[in-house]
């Protein structure tokens, strides 16, 4: 299974992909995960590849082999189209963050759904950011979206909850697990 998580620096993608990897290891899979960090990347594009199976070789997904793309930001869902195939599932969080050229008035924020639907029709837009805000934990959008993603993976809910319990700091644990469960209903 090949999962691509995309978004913008600061949205919590790294933690979300760490949690997904941990869940899959606990489910007995071989897991590899790859993303790039290092430069002052606040507000930069972030992409995390998570792959799990009985045996994984390459830490990056080959083109045309992504099973599920989950994007934390709308525009970022369309930035890596070569990884998609015609039956890829694409989950898009309804949230826009204007890139610098849009801020400077040089570009307009593009309409991304038509771009994605040229490759795959299986797209879902979810109110992840809104849900996180509603439960009073706007920073927990990453965990809400893990809840959404978990619906499409064959892994029991208890394993996710157990992993979240182990990986999330106590102070914010309860509200994030609430967000995760809300995500499973989106």
């Amino acid at each position: 299974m090949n999962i691509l998580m995309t978004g913008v620096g600061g949205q919590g993608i790294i933690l979300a992909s760490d949690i997904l990897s941990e869940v899959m290891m606990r489910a007995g899979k071989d897991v590899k995960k790859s993303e790039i960090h290092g430069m002052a990347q606040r507000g930069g594009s972030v992409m995390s590849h998570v792959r799990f199976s009985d045996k994984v070789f390459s830490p990056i997904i080959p083109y045309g082999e992504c099973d599920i793309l989950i994007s934390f930001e709308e525009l970022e869902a369309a930035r890596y189209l070569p990884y998609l195939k015609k039956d890829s599932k694409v989950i898009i969080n309804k949230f826009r963050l204007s890139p610098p050229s849009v801020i400077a008035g040089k570009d307009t924020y593009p309409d991304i759904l038509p771009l994605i639907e040229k490759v795959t029709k299986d797209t879902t837009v979810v109110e992840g950011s809104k849900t996180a805000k509603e439960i009073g934990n706007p920073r927990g959008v990453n965990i809400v979206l893990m809840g959404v993603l978990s619906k499409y993976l064959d892994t029991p809910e208890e394993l996710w909850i157990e992993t979240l319990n182990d990986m999330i700091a106590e102070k914010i644990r309860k509200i994030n697990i609430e967000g995760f469960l809300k995500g499973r209903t989106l």
Partner: protein
Amino acid sequence: MKKVLSGNEAIARGAYEAGVRLASAYPGTPSTEILETVAKEYKSILSEWAPNEKVALEVATGASYAGARTMAVMKHVGVNVAADPLMTLPYTLVRGGLVLISADDPELFSSQNEQDNRQFARFAKIPMLEPASSQEAKDFILEAMLISEKYQTPVMLRTTTRIAHSMGVVEIHEPVEVKEPVLERHPKEWVMLPANARVRHPVIEERIKNLMELSNSSPLNIAEINNTAIGIIASGVSYQYAKEAMPDASFLKLGMSYPLPDKKIKDFASKVKELWVIEELDPFFEEQIKALGIACKGKDVIPMCGELSPDIIRQALAGKKIEKPAQPELPGRPPSMCPGCPHRGMLWALRRNKAFIAGDIGCYTLGFLPPLDAIDTCQCMGAGISHAHGMSRVFGPGKEKITAVIGDSTFYHSGMTGLLNLAYNNGVALIVILDNSTTAMTGAQNHPGTGLTLMGGKAPEVNLSEVVKALGIKWVEIVNPYELKNTRKKVKEALEHDGPSVIISKSPCVLLKSKAVSGKPLKVDNDKCTNCKVCISLGCPAIEAGADSIKITSLCVGCGICAEICAAGAIGGAE
């Protein structure tokens, strides 16, 4: 027990399991997390940030001479800085296992070049191991220690960004016993006077032959014979990419990749119809294999530049042109200096004074980007000061406004010698030290100016202005870069000063919960805003252009420099 670990976390675990007593490093992507993890998780290891990589390797050498297992950790270009001790270290007697970790950065995710440090192993005549997964990253540390002690040589463990930053499942083990240091003297092996070094050189030549025999017998170099139509020789992440692309091919996987296992390679080549060498960057294996008289394919089709991928390898082996699939052009998100970054005001002030700004390695290098457009050179750590000195020397005093900017951590790394040179040779350039009290670009590490060590202990805090004065600079001013008017005034004074000058632009990195900014977004009075866009020239991600007036978004942390330069007085206090 199993854990999901990055390559860097696995190396830290490996150091713990292998009984490492001391580790020294200078932070640099993609190696930084190794010592951060050691300091956080394995407190039995003495871990230190060194001011630069040369020092780190020398500290590790001392620990090894004392009989302790040790490692020095750095990014690829850090090895250039450490090259001086590295080239003579193999002449000397290594007692405790000594491993040099070189983390290379193909594709230049966060580097100024993509040099292939495998060449350093051959250059220094030391063995090299290349892990291809997190599991191997951990296990190879103990292997490297054993080789180092048995052959009395430093060992290089070379990773790349994809190994360092990718995560994988790792079976962890209990640590071996840590050896106690014992003081010995080995002057003939440690004092590299010509008479002694001359005797030691043949030792290296003999050793590398013995290491080739080890490479031939080592289980780290494994032949996997499957379909023999295609045989692939690869190491590190290239092995994983090739395995993904060609799962049925035969492989010779090199875990010990210098010296090469000549006999194993000959044997493998004889078993396959078509031999491919798949490696990122230089044809390091390929040239050596061809020199053995073995025909192989490689860099005639595999790119020399950037990272490889399963797709590139598939295309290359199928004889197709290597190309990226189409992707619609979308507005990019280049990295930028953060909203409220204290560097922004200073760079803007220098640019407004029409100065030439020699740059250096750090967050401020991002000031290169439009609209700030405020960095004119960037080459290596510490270079900017000397660029500025060389330029201002040939122009002569008063001709051009030549300046350099350098961060505090970079200044301690290798800027001090440049400034010493500038003062000594009667330079006239203006040097600005952007002191944000951290090593920001790599994620906020401590350094000699912060008063804290890697392990969290207290340390003497370097007095930067006193250091600058002690190096021979008489005109020294400390400014708060958020007070833009005063900053501009001091820049002007410094540029008019007949002689060398240093401005220390002092305010903490905004990511360090800076108290210098309010944290509350500013707001725009639309009636007053003339839409002149001067504030846009600051390149702040929190300021958006609008049709009639500018907008300030919630990203704003209230640093206030845009309000200071707004002639219409349209930007004001917090909402």
